[in-house]
């Protein structure tokens, strides 16, 4: 049985560190500030078919940076990647359809903005 004891996370990690001499260090990349993604790359990152991504664009989950281009030339920002993933989670976990997920995403954006404003103006 796997045992993870949070209260002993310290010793647990220490032990691993001793075994491997050093814990592997992974450098994260800020998704929102990384290079734009092509349709193919976005599909790969989300494990989705191109048709599914195109549907997401049609339903307004995400917008290509230049929507006037044909879809083979579409480029997406990192924010699109996060939005697609959130839409997928909402659909899966809350049993809503894509339209419901889009509505939730838009409302969540608005709430986020309002919360930031409230936090900013609150002394």
């Amino acid at each position, binding site marked *: 049985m796997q045992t993870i004891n949070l209260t002993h996370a310290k010793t647990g990690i220490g032990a691993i560190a001793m075994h491997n001499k050093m814990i592997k*260090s992974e450098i994260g*990349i*800020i998704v929102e500030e990384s290079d734009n993604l092509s349709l193919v790359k976005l599909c790969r990152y989300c494990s*989705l078919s191109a048709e599914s991504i195109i549907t997401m664009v049609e339903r307004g989950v995400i917008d290509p940076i230049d929507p006037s281009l044909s879809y083979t030339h579409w480029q997406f920002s990192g924010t699109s990647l996060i939005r697609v993933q959130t839409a997928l989670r909402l659909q899966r976990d809350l049993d809503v359809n894509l339209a419901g997920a889009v509505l939730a995403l838009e409302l969540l954006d608005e709430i986020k903005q309002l919360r930031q404003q409230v936090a900013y103006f609150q002394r």
Partner: protein
Amino acid sequence: MGCARIRDPTDFSRIIVVGEALEPLLLDNGTSYKRDSMEYKDYYKIMGITKDASQNDIKRAYRKLARKYHPDVSKEKDAEERFKELGEAYEVLKDPEKRTAYDQLGANWKAGQQGFQPPPDWDAGFEFHGDSFTGGAGAAGFSDFFESLFGQARGGFQSHSAGAGSFQMRGQDSHAKVFIDLEDAYQGASRGLTLQSTVMGADGHPQLKPRTLNVKIPKGVKAGQNIRLKGQGSPGIGGGQAGDLYLEIEFNPHSIYKVDGADISLELPIAPWEAALGGKIKVPTPSGMIDLKIPPAISSGKKMRLKGRGIPAKQRGDFYVRLMIVLPQNLSEKEKALYQELQHANNQFNPRKNWDWGNSHA
């Protein structure tokens, strides 16, 4: 496969984040992670329903709570933990077979008992259909309590892989929220994470395997942004690529700084004579103390901008200092006299001169 890939609903909660100093950082009550002493879990209580709830009541309660605690929707700090607990409770209660077995067990359970152990043959007479585990799209990551009763949940895809020799599937992406200090966004930070991923054991059954990862959070990250770690999600199936790990960054609230995207602001209390005479004041910024030169005769509420001293994001933020004149309370006789002297020294000064009525009623 044209439709969205169904992913493990628990992939949100399989990540335990420990702090930089290897102290627990993002820990809630930790109930289902306390794996040394297994606790009895009251699934009815978790779902906020009574024991005589109908299957419909259970479904309704689940939907309602799932919306409330969904980590993408909820602002509650323990949302991930609650959502996971809820998923586990629903996994048992939605299935009449498992629910009956669980109810029987509950009758023998005495409150206050420490270290739960199911009776040796508690599930005699019940046969759980392997299928029912896949209903939740793979229940990996449930508590020990769950596993001791219903066995280790099968991964969602394993059943499909049987027989299909060349079946390949990319591993699932994992998600977690990580709280860092604002100062970390200036300097970059390191975080130790403990992740659990489902791997195939020697016996052909999926197992939860913990692993530790040290994550470098790049400097310049803003609240709400996501960090991607390639290949650090769940391992792939049948030689497929591993999924990715996404960390959503949040800042711990700060006592003096306010954050607006990449811009930071600070309210700086100053004495009336500092406002009048100007001078240098030591001001804290997340990247260290600076000497701020204040021009003379500056009014309360005025904002000063320190260009480029905000979060060092791709588009560097600015640092704003808002000056707030603070007066000493309980003036001494001497202070009072000096203020009166000031008053007489400039009786032409009218701070309300811009108001129309201020002039006529002055």
